[in-house]
């Protein structure tokens, strides 16, 4: 548990413009998607709040990943519209972290160049790329030898490199698709706190797909509970425990009550199917 305590930085969460906090960041309207055997989304509407970390949770196969993949443009939607402050995806800088870090990183590039790659795509000159990566590393307090190739790093370190690669463009919004589910439990706990720290440092609107309710509640400001497909919003459950949350948070009554509430709704959904 010492890992948990030491990795959490106590950074105040001030300096945020209150007036912007109320306007939704992403508006999803009439989103529809069907696969040959099922209708996954049928005219789905939702607003993603700005500067919050939300977790998407729901029964297996309800389309949790499909939702963020449609928002991030990895999977085409059949119909509907997703706007970021009224703009289409093509005009938005965003980050995406894949579940399978082993296949998402470029093994031919050292970790440092992997992180810098999105900047290279954007045409940022080499000197500035290096500066920005170093600034991000210092900002997040990451202690990894970035001269190493990904295959010489542990799973958690590789996923941390993936997260930094997503953050290097200073995205308006960050998507993570079950980012820790390929890691062992010890590393998962460590990475949760790394992500929390990243979120506290950057205040980037973050959408996390999770299949672990404890993780979903622990990390989020809101848990988006989805029904079986065609997916509807069962409830958008707020959880406002102060950050940094630690292992103590897990035994507090607020956490237990929120998790129990989510679990109850989840099980009701599962039984309906």
């Amino acid at each position, binding site marked *: 548990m010492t890992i948990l305590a030491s990795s959490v930085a106590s950074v105040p969460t001030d300096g945020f413009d209150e007036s912007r906090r109320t306007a939704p960041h992403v508006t999803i309207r009439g989103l529809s998607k069907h696969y040959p055997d099922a209708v996954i989304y049928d005219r789905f509407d939702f607003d993603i709040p700005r500067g919050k970390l939300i977790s998407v949770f729901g029964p297996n196969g309800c389309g949790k990943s499909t939702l963020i993949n449609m928002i991030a443009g990895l999977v085409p939607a059949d119909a509907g519209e997703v706007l970021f402050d009224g703009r289409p995806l093509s005009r938005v800088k965003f980050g995406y972290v*894949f579940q399978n870090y082993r*296949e998402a990183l470029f093994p*031919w590039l050292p970790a440092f160049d992997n992180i810098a790659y*999105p900047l290279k*795509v954007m045409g940022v000159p080499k000197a500035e790329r290096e500066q920005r990566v170093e600034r991000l590393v210092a900002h997040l307090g990451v202690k990894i030898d970035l001269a190493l*190739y990904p295959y010489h790093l542990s799973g958690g370190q590789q996923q941390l490199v993936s997260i930094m690669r997503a953050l290097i463009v200073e995205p308006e919004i960050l998507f993570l698709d079950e980012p820790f589910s390929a890691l062992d439990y010890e590393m998962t706990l460590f990475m949760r706190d790394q992500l929390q720290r990243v979120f506290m440092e950057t205040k980037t609107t973050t959408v996390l797909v999770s299949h672990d309710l404890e993780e979903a509640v622990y990390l989020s400001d809101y848990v988006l509970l989805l029904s079986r497909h065609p997916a509807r919003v069962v409830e958008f459950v707020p959880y406002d425990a102060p950050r940094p949350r630690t292992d103590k948070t897990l035994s507090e009554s607020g956490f237990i009550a929120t998790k129990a509430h989510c679990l109850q709704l989840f099980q009701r959904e599962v039984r309906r199917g």
Partner: protein
Amino acid sequence: MKKSNAFLPLVGVAILLAVWGLATALKLVDPVLLPSPFATFRTLWEGMLSGKLGVDFLKTVMRTISSTAIAAVIAIPLGILLGSSEKLYRSVEFLIDFFRSTPASAMFPLFLVLFGVGDRTKISVAAFGAALVILFNVAYGVMNARKTRLLAAKVMGASRMRVLFDVMLLESLPQTFVGLRNGVSLALVIIVVAEMFIGSTDGLGQRVFEAQQLFDMPGMYAAIFAAGALGYSLNLLFLLIERRFVHWAGR
């Protein structure tokens, strides 16, 4: 422990030489058919240093390298092109598989007609065989590029061209090297066979054939060992290049 393991590959060699030496010393085999290891390696050594064997060896090296180089220059870009569109590859897959399965030696007469008697025929037949092997591997390497990696590049805003050069090309490199290694081995086989039969005057194939005709058994064994050493070295060379440039393969 580690030190003794390093010597393990030599055990087989030592056993072979011992059995061979014993068989010749005890005259278990007709000494005309099987000269002693000592006589064989002396012939190999002298032939490589000062005799005709060294010249023939270099000739075969030159032909194998040129045919592999020609094959690579044609097959790698073509393989990338075909591999980047699965539809395109599927439409020519049968042709590639058919000619890949056709013994290249069956093409000698055709190439003789086209290029006449000489180096051009030998090199072009070998290049033909090697090119199909390389093409097949490169195309599959490109087609089997990890989908997640391509998506990752796409999500970061990379254009089609950038995805091709920054991701697909590098993704296909391990498979490309498999193709190059198989290609160079096949090219050597074809070159040696061509040297034996198509009115040749030099090369390792010619050396083996001539020694056999003259009943020069130590010379024949020496040429066979020279060909073996060449094949092994070429494979090793490509493996070393691969380890240097495709350090991530299999990790």
